[in-house]
């Protein structure tokens, strides 16, 4: 509750800040302060201190899982602010509005990760999506950005329609919007149909194959700063909602969807990884990499165990931190292709070293958070009884090494003149801190996962 109110109010404050504060620096500082306040408020709630007592009539439940993910999302957003808030300035003139939209997205994330009613899920997903449509098109003079925004909006509203239809069918079958249905021996067809529609629309939101076609174009067309945010925090939030929905609403009819989710996971892994191999632009590679990582996160929904829950939180953190870090460097590069990174290590040895940590984490090499999060997923999958899926997943992880290491090769072993601008000392230290967290979580994941229980 704390985080929801704080981020919603912050969004409103940021909206007004554009004419109250006429200095871009003060707008930025204000946004940082507000987000920090949100984080602190959320930590208070994790420790059992809630500032607000509002009767949600059981439609929202702020359990530890939701609160912990909110914390992860907020901290990742904070990292994103620290690294990239200056780049937001370059998109257009409505600087404070962008922050305000980001805060609204955060509010949507809180709702969609703590819903107890399907209506709240719908609201949460919409609150989170609409600002994203706007942000995607925020580079108004750029045709690609416009195209991406329109594409995203059309496809997004289509999937929202599917979701509403699904919710309606489920209501028809069960007579309630509350999650946690109990089903009799025979599962009603309406419920199954509704479940399928929800599965499709959620797969669309998290860009799981075969509903992923919008992803590369939208990620590529959107301003890179925005892509960095939507490929990480927003996608992870989609998975948390997905997980919650399938654990609580459809947990009792698991045999009906388990195979289907398994197939979606496998197809996502396959398409994401194989297509990423052929990309020439790092930005598009990261778009496909986000699809392939989504395939791994789907494994959590496939297995739905405690391991999967812990793993998903860890995965969200590991993946978001690493990807935000890489994007923050990418934004400052002159050339987004792999060749554009040639000789990067010679000019920026410090940054290159940090990027290597992020790439190793994404590839799932031990001693990084990325490895352990993949490990949790595999463990949950094998525990869930599907060894074949786990083997397929690791083979795909081995494929992913190809494109992540290609960037390392460009940076370290090829000569060229990579050009990067605007790297301040603060920027470097922030990145180093993210890399430090990545390694720390890779050695002691309990630092994060223990919050689920204590």
């Amino acid at each position, binding site marked *: 509750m704390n985080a929801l109110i704080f981020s919603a109010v912050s969004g409103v404050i940021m909206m007004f800040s554009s004419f109250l504060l006429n200095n871009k620096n003060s707008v930025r500082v204000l946004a940082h302060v507000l987000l920090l306040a949100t984080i602190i408020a959320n930590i208070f709630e994790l420790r059992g201190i809630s500032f607000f007592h509002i009767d949600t009539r059981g439609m929202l439940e702020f359990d530890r899982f939701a609160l912990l993910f909110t914390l992860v999302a907020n901290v990742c957003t904070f990292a994103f602010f620290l690294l990239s808030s200056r780049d937001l300035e370059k998109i257009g003139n409505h600087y404070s509005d962008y922050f305000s939209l980001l805060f609204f997205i955060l509010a949507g994330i809180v709702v969609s990760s703590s819903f107890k009613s399907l209506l709240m899920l719908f609201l949460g997903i919409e609150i989170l999506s609409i600002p994203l449509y706007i942000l995607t098109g925020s580079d108004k003079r750029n045709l690609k950005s416009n195209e991406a925004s329109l594409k995203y909006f059309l496809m997004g509203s289509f999937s929202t329609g599917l979701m509403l239809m699904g919710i309606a069918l489920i209501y028809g079958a069960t007579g309630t919007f509350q999650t946690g249905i109990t089903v009799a021996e025979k599962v009603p067809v309406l419920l199954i149909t509704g479940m399928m529609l929800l599965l499709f629309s959620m797969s669309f939101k998290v860009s799981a194959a075969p509903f992923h076609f919008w992803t590369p174009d939208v990620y590529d067309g959107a301003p890179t700063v925005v892509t960095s945010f939507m490929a990480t925090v927003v996608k992870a939030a989609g998975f948390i909602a997905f997980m919650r929905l399938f654990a609580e609403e459809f947990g009792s009819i698991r045999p009906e969807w388990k195979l289907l989710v398994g197939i979606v996971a496998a197809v996502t892994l396959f398409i994401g990884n194989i297509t990423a191999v052929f990309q020439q632009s790092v930005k598009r590679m990261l778009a496909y990499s986000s699809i392939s990582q989504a395939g791994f996160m789907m494994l959590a929904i496939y297995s739905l165990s405690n391991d999967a829950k812990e793993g998903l939180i860890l995965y969200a953190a590991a993946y978001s931190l690493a990807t935000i870090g890489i994007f923050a460097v990418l934004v400052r590069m002159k050339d987004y292709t792999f060749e554009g990174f040639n000789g990067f290590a010679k000019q920026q040895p410090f940054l290159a070293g940090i990027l290597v940590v992020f790439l190793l984490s994404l590839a799932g090499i031990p001693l990084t958070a990325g490895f352990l999060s993949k490990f949790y997923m595999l463990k949950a999958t094998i525990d869930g009884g599907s060894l074949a899926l786990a083997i397929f997943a690791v083979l795909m992880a081995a494929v992913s090494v190809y494109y992540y290491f290609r960037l390392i090769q460009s940076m*370290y072993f090829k000569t060229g003149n990579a050009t990067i601008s605007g790297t301040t000392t603060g920027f470097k230290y922030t990145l180093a801190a993210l890399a430090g967290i990545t390694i720390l979580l890779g050695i002691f994941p309990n630092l994060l996962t223990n919050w689920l229980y204590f």
Partner: protein
Amino acid sequence: MIVLLLFLVPLIGGFLSFFIKNDKTVRTWALLTSVITLLISIAGNTFAHSPGQLHFSSSWLGSLGSSFSLQLDGLSQILCLLTAISYPLILVSTWRSSYKTANNFFALMLLTQAGLMGVFLATDALLFYFFWELALVPMYFLCSGWGGERRIPVTFKFFIYTFTASVLMLIGLLYLYFQTPDRSFSLQSFYALKLSNDTQSWVFWLLFLAFAVKMPVFPFHTWQPDTYEQSPTAATMVLSAIMVKMGVYGVIRWVLPVVPIAAYSWGDVVMSLSVIGIIYASIIAIQQDDFKRLIAYSSIAHIGLMSATLFAETKIGYQGVMVQMFNHGINILGLWIIVELIERQFGTRKLSQLGGVAQKAPALAILFVILAFANISLPLTNAFIGEFLMFSGIWSSTVTHYNILFTVLAILSIILAAVYTLTAVQKVLYGPESSITEGTKDIHGNEKMVLWVIVIMVVVFGVYPQPLLRITDGFVDLLLNKINVAHLFVK
């Protein structure tokens, strides 16, 4: 405590090396670190016998059922000693090679050493996997960063190959973890498992594949000659002297005792592959003109013999493997130094362009010839002891029906080794001088010293192998107890 230091000293030394910018200082620092590691290792092998010094266990990832536990037993002792001895020799013998950004080079070298030590010491499956990758990743950077012309694709192939195999191993280990009653990754729990025959079979392949690629066993060897050829010599030395032993070690530690029935039933297949590999690699080695590739193929043949012996399941064979792991590491180190010296002096590794070196460089010639003899495993050299034990091991094997056939074919490798090694000796040392070798200078200084140390070890362990055999003795008995499948049939 000693066991922890073995791993921590190179790790910390490696991290600190990143920050030493001065070329001379960082070399000295790396050498110092490796010498300290060597002293610790010797201490561990000689006078530290209390369990407190040879075991270390601390909780880590408790929720996952994994703990940070290390142990120094007979098998680990031999391999840690090999790692510890090799590093100073490698560093001294390549003292004059110049590297751009030397601090990174030596840091990665030491980190690799830390990973190797960890692999040989870990008694927890997850920890083992961590170290397995920790040894691989710095090696990738070493070979890609400082190697020859085609280094980038070649090293990448090596990395993808081993990484793919190792993630499959991870799945195998995870599966075993779920079979343990107490959900634990510890070696003891794995050893206590009683799996059904079918399960053992595919778990065996999941695990064995990773080790087979690393060794490499015949159809999985294609990464090896290219990688050896393209890597900087110091890295090649680590790869061939120590890293391939990770595969042999893995089979002894994690495959044979865990899935003994599968090891028994697939033994013939693996032995056949190994024997094919021995002959195949030897024949290719005969054709090689590039000295580095010749040694690479010769190494495949030697390792093939070890992997064949692993599945013969005899005491004498295992002792041979363990002794030979050490000896092979020492010998191949010497050969690489010779190659490095030749390449540095003449700018080529092509055997056909060399000749007549012996007249002007007698010291080089003597040392080279002794090492060549060791490579053919002539009596009085250390390799003879190891290989002889292994041949007797295969011969006396009771788990395979084809023991005599395998032995005969494997012994062919000695003849073939004589062909290619002596040809190389002849082409380099004797015959008319070529235009390149006219101004030959003899070796001196560091390299000479290192080569003498190696040659002395070759002869000493050839004449008096008792110290090594004694280390292996107790361990092999324990091992045979665990992998003996005969009692299963009685039941």
